[in-house]
C-alpha cells in the first residue's frame, strides 16, 4: 500500500493477453489508467507459454486456460499485480463457464510465484452494492477516493461499449480494434486486413475470440484464409442486438455469458449470406459441447457449408491446413454451381 501512496503512477498492473482480454481489455485498461496505474500486457502467445501453462494444470483443463496460465507466468517480474477477476455474470441469470469463476483460485495454485493476484468478483446477480464493492476492491491499490473509482468505472464501461460498437460497425477483429483504439504498441505480426471486394469468398468463423484470434491456439486460421483470398468475418463484427435476436430464435434465452458468439453467431451467419461457416471449439469445452451442438443441428438443415474444428495442444498445423483446403474447395465449388442441391 505504501507503494501506491508514494509512487502512484509507477504501479504496474499486469493483464494476461488471453481469455477475457479479447472481450474486456479496453475497459480494464481505461479503468486502471484513469486511476493513475500503468497497465502491462503480456506478449502474444508463444509455444513456450502454451507448454509452461499446460504443465501447471491438470491435462483435461481446456486449452485457453492453459494458455492463460502461460501468460500469467510470462508476467512474473514484469508487474506489481496481476489482474484476474472472477467474471461470474454480466447479465441477470446468465452465468459464465466455471473455469472463469474459478480462474483466480486456479491461477494462485498454478502460478505460486506470480505477483499478487487481484481477485475480484463481478456478478450482476448480486446487486449494485456488490458490484461497487468489486470496483473498490480493484481500485484500492491506486486510490482511496471512492468517487474517483466510481467515475473511473463508468468511463471504463463506456469504453467497453464503444469498443464493441467499434468492432461491429467497422468490421474489425479484437486485436486490430484494440490496436487502433488504444494506440499502444501492438505486436508486429498481429495485423490483419479484412479483405475488400476482391475476396473469393466470405467465411465466417464462429466461436470464442480467445480461440479464433489467438494465433497459437487457432494456428493463424484467419491469416490462412485471408491469404487464400477470403474475407473473414467473426462474431465481434456483428451488432450485439443481431446476435441476441439470433440466440432468441434458437434457444430462447442465453444460458452462458458467451452464448452470443457461439449459438447466436452460428444462427446469424448461417442465415446471412456468407459462403461458409467454420466453428472453432477447444477440446472438452463444456459450454461449447452443448452450444455448438445446437449450431450443428441448424447447420445440418442449412445449405451453407459448415465445418467444426476442435482444437487442443496436439492439433497439428498440417492437419488444419488440409481441412481448410478441403473446406475451401467445397465452398468454391458450391459458388461456381449455385444450382446444385445442398449437400
Amino acid at each position, binding site marked *: 500500500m505504501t507503494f501506491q501512496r508514494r509512487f502512484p503512477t509507477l504501479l504496474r498492473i499486469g493483464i494476461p493477453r488471453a481469455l477475457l482480454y479479447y472481450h474486456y481489455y479496453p475497459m480494464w485498461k481505461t479503468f486502471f489508467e484513469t486511476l493513475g496505474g500503468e497497465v502491462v500486457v503480456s506478449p502474444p502467445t508463444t509455444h513456450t507459454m502454451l507448454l509452461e501453462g499446460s504443465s501447471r494444470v491438470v491435462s483435461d483443463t481446456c486449452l485457453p486456460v492453459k494458455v492463460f496460465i502461460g501468460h500469467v507466468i510470462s508476467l512474473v517480474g514484469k508487474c506489481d499485480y496481476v489482474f484476474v477477476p472472477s467474471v461470474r455474470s454480466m447479465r441477470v*441469470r446468465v452465468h459464465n463457464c466455471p473455469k472463469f469463476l474459478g480462474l483466480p483460485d486456479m491461477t494462485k495454485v498454478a502460478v505460486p510465484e506470480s505477483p499478487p493476484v487481484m481477485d475480484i468478483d463481478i456478478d450482476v446477480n448480486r446487486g449494485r452494492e456488490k458490484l461497487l464493492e468489486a470496483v473498490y476492491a480493484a481500485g484500492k491499490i491506486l486510490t482511496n477516493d471512492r468517487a474517483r473509482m466510481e467515475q473511473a468505472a463508468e468511463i471504463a464501461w463506456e469504453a467497453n461499449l464503444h469498443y464493441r460498437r467499434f468492432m461491429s460497425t467497422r468490421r474489425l477483429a479484437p486485436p486490430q480494434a484494440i490496436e487502433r483504439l488504444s494506440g499502444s504498441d501492438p505486436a508486429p505480426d498481429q495485423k490483419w486486413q479484412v479483405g475488400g471486394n476482391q475476396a473469393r469468398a466470405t467465411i465466417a468463423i464462429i466461436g470464442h475470440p480467445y480461440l479464433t484470434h489467438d494465433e497459437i491456439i487457432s494456428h493463424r486460421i484467419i491469416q490462412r484464409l485471408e491469404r487464400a483470398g477470403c474475407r473473414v468475418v467473426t462474431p465481434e463484427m456483428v451488432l450485439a442486438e443481431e446476435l441476441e435476436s439470433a440466440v432468441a430464435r434458437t*434457444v430462447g434465452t442465453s444460458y452462458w455469458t458467451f452464448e452470443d458468439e457461439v449459438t447466436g453467431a452460428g444462427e446469424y451467419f448461417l442465415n446471412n449470406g456468407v459462403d461458409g461457416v467454420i466453428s472453432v471449439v477447444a477440446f472438452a469445452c463444456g459450454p461449447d459441447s452443448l452450444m455448438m*451442438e445446437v449450431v450443428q443441428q441448424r447447420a445440418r438443415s442449412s445449405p451453407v457449408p459448415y465445418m467444426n474444428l476442435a482444437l487442443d495442444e496436439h492439433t497439428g498445423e498440417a492437419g488444419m491446413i488440409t481441412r481448410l483446403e478441403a473446406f475451401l474447395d467445397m465452398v468454391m465449388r458450391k459458388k461456381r454451381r449455385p444450382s446444385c442441391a445442398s449437400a
Partner: protein
Amino acid sequence: MRLGLTNMANIDVAVRAMAKRLQIDLVRTPASTRRTLSLGVKYSPETACLPFKLQIGNMIEALEQGADTLVMPGGPGPCRFGYYHRVHEMLLRELGYKFRMITQDNGIMNIVDSVTEHAPKARVAAAFHFGITKLKTIEEIDRCVHRVLAAAHDKGAVIRLHRGAIEAVDEADSYRTLRRTKQEYIQELEDLPKVDSPPLKIGITGEFFLVIDPFANMDVETELGKLGVEVRRSTAVSDWLRLNPFIYIFGLLEKYKSYRAAVPYLSRHVGGDGWQSVGAKVLHAEDWDGIVHLEPFGCMPEIVARNILPAVKEGPPVLNLVYDEHTGKAGLISRLEAFVDMLKRQKKERQSPLSRASYGLSYERNNHNG
C-alpha cells in the same frame, strides 16, 4: 399422459410412490445398462458429459416403453446441467420421437405442478411426503450398508440384503410397512458377523450425479466396501429436494461448513459441486483416511476443484477418478485396490510406535500429500 423419467440412483422408487398416490401413469424406465450408455453415446455430442449421455439413453428407452411425456429440470447456472434439456429435446426430436417435454427453468416445484396437472395441493403434498419418506428410508439403509459392508465377513449377503431392502421399500404402501421394513432390514444387516479390525473410512466427493448413481460410478461404493472400506458420503438425493426443513438444514449446514473450510484455497462457488469437493478435503482432515473424488470427463467445476486440491496440504490423500463411456471396471478396481493398500499401509505405520521412532516426522500425515 405417460410419464418417463431418467434414472438416478433409487429416485424412481420415490417417484413411483408419488405417482401411484396421484394416479399418474409412470412408465418404468428400464434400469440403465450398457445398451443405455451405447444409445446415449451414439446420439450425444462427443464431449458432452457422461450424465448427459446416460440421460439420452434413458429417455430413448423410456420412449420405447411408451412414454409420451418426459421430464427434465433445468435452470440457469454455470454448470452444463441446466442446459441439458434444450439439447435433449432437440436431439430426440431430430431422431423423430414424438413427446412432450416438461421442463422448467424455475426448479422442481413448477415441474411438479405441470406433471400433477394441478391436482389439489394437499394431495400433492401428501404424496410428496410419502415419496420423500421412502427416499429417506433408502438413504438410511444405504448408510447402514456402508458401515456393514466394510466389516462383514460375507460381503455377498450384504449386497443381497441391500437389493432386497430396496425392493421391499419399493413395494411398501404405507408408512407402517415402510417403518417395519426399514427396521427389519437394518437389524438383519447389523446382525451379520463382522471382522474385528476397524475399517478405513473413505469419503466420496465430486460431481453430484456420479457420486449418487451406482451405474454411472460403476458401483464404486460397493467395490470399496468389498475392500473393507467404510464409505462416507455427505451428498444425498434429498439434498436436492429442499422441502423437508429438517433435511434442508442438516444437508445445507454440511455444505456451508465445507464451503467455509475451502476458503483459503477456493473462495467462491464455481458451479456444480466444485466448492464442496475442495472443502471436503479440509473439513474431513481428521476423520477420513482417504478421499475418492469422482468426476465425469470434462466436468468443468470438478476440473477447477482438481486443479486446486493438490494445494490443500491438510487433509487425506485423494484418488481422482475421471469417468467417461470408455471407463473399464477392471482398471477402476485396480486403482481402488492400490489406493486402499496405500492407505492401509499409511495407517499401520502411523499407529506403529516403532515406525514413528525410526522414520520420524516424515511419515506424519500432512506430508503425505502433494
